[in-house]
């Protein structure tokens, strides 16, 4: 039953992605407005799916790698929608909704069945660890979207190519602000997530840190974000440099998220 909501959400994510891309193509704001509502309904279906899973299994809904991808998509859409309330940045949806949709496609490969959680992972700490970390990472993904869009808009303005395309893109200041807020929130959540994770690890493996490939890459990404945040807050980095660095830091994070799960043997593996 709950899987139906997942599939409906997947299709509606696709619709909103198409809508947003269509609004970019036609340069019509109305199309983007409608797409925002479509994205909101996808998010609602997706939320129902998570709620039903929780009730049915009575456990943490984010255990497997595929569940993590689906949760990532959900968090990104949710955070974007929250921003949408405050700022006029509809076009950012054209970056967010396709990513959500692709994550959902990847997640759908193995979503129908239920994963029974091994005893070692049946802890509230694990659930908190995963949710904090993935939400933090979703915020970073959004910061990256804003950064990429910043670089595009900046390129257009610097090269004096102010066309109707640059008109639909948000203003530089708005994009920089979103980038900044996402970085701050994302960094706090990821840091908390890592701390919770290591507390749990100590209780199970006896040590706080295992230098497992996934942990190492995550730490590298965490440092990259720490440096970026330091530059932003202390050195007053804004705009171009900050946006570019956001993209680099996210590349490191992607390696830790995806590649380590696929390429390395890691103790930090989802089932």
């Amino acid at each position, binding site marked *: 039953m709950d899987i139906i909501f997942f599939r409906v959400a997947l299709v509606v994510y696709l619709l909103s992605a198409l809508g947003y891309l269509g609004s970019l193509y036609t340069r019509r704001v109305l199309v983007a407005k409608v797409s925002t509502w479509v994205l909101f309904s996808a998010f609602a279906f997706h939320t129902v799916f998570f709620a039903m899973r929780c009730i049915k299994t009575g456990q943490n809904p984010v255990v497997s790698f595929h569940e993590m991808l689906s949760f990532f998509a959900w968090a990104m859409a949710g955070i974007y929608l929250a921003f949408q309330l405050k700022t006029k940045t509809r076009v950012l949806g054209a970056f967010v909704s396709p990513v959500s949709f692709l994550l959902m496609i990847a997640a759908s490969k193995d979503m129908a069945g239920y994963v029974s959680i091994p005893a070692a992972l049946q802890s509230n700490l694990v659930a908190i660890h995963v949710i904090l970390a993935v939400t933090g990472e979703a915020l970073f993904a959004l910061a990256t979207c804003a950064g990429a869009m910043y670089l595009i808009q900046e390129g257009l*303005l610097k090269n004096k190519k102010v*066309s109707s395309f640059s008109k639909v893109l948000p203003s*530089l*200041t708005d994009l920089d602000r979103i980038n900044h807020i996402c970085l701050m929130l994302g960094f706090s959540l990821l840091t908390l997530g890592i701390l919770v994770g290591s507390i749990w690890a100590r209780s199970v493996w006896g040590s706080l840190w295992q230098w497992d490939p996934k942990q190492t890459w995550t730490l590298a990404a965490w440092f990259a974000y720490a440096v970026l945040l330091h530059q932003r807050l202390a050195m007053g980095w*804004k705009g171009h*440099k900050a946006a570019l660095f956001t993209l680099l830091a996210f590349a490191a994070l992607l390696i830790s998220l995806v590649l380590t799960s696929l390429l390395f043997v890691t103790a930090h593996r989802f089932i």
Partner: protein
Amino acid sequence: MNIILIGMNHKTAPLEIRERLYLSCGDDVNHLAEIMNIPEIKEGLYLATCNRVEVLANATDGEGAVARLRDFIFHHGNLSAEEMSKCLYLHHDHEAVRHLFRVAASIDSMVMGEPQILGQIKDAFRTAVEHNATGVILNKILHHSFRVAKRVRSETGIANNAVSVSFAAVELAKKIFGVIEGRNVLLIGAGEMSELAAKHLISRRVGKIFIANRTYARAVKMAEDFHGTAIEFDMLPERLHEVDIVITSTGAPGYVLTPPMIEAAIRRRKNRLLFLIDIAVPRDIDPAVGEIDNVYLYNIDDLQGIVDSNLKSRKKEAEKAETIIDEEVTKYLEWYSALEVVPTIISLREKMEGIIRGEIAKSSAWMENLTEDEKRNIEIMANSIINKVLHDPITGLKEESKDNSALPYIAAIRRLFGLDDK
């Protein structure tokens, strides 16, 4: 008819070339003198603004005059023949008149409908008149162009929706800052253009307004008008970090803002974005400033590109204006073709005969008592008085017309006897 208009504007010549020409043309009077030294030119007008350099002339020998005028521009702009042929336009006779009318009506302006150009033409005309460089033909064209400008202004919407440089600047500022409310603005240099831009921005409730000018008193005056703060010119580098938007339009020959100044300001601003608009020719801001991170520099040619995309909505008004201009060019040509000896003599006679007929009609009451013979004698007498009065002027006109110098006399007679007002 040998009216020549030669020049270049923002559409035909890039900023660098206009700058070169404008720089060497600091002193209009000398250039006018140089133009008037060309023997083929009888009347001349020299117009140089930040968007155009044009010479309007009435010549005896069209081709010779054009060749020498080309030399004049070639020499001052330090241009190669290849560059010049790309940038220069040349109009003759009614096309020259039409071009001047379009310029005066602000249809040919970079910012269509901007009010500045008419004042600039009036200044150029005043200079020409003061140096006796104009005569019947140019005086008439110029006065006519002022009338055309007024008509276009009042009969079309071009002036109202002057989608101006300032409008384009506001649009850009929105792309950079999101909201303009609360952003601080600095105006460097005075001039109608920068004042226009300031008015546009103030209507968007900007934050503080700073005004700098080489003449401090002028800055203080402008600051009063705009409820802003005047800044000493030398203090500019100290205050730059306080502002988000800078509009420059000084007449300075060198750069007013340089990369080190902007870099320092950006550092003090903690990398907050800075939007610079340079509407001066020659430029006030070193183009290298545009390379600095988080600085957005737009000069007058860059703004052109943005103004173009707003043009469509005003095309209809422009078409209306073109129709008015067509009508006025026709009127001018009518006036011009009447500047011949024979038509003037005919209309002079017609006018006089009309007066006689009118007076006789008025006197018909007391003339009823006269015999037919007496009445005829009175008419004959009146006619012969007119003939005697007109004899000398007509003979004089005919004599002058033999060596082509009758124009001023014809124009004077037409004016004094009111032959053109019907």
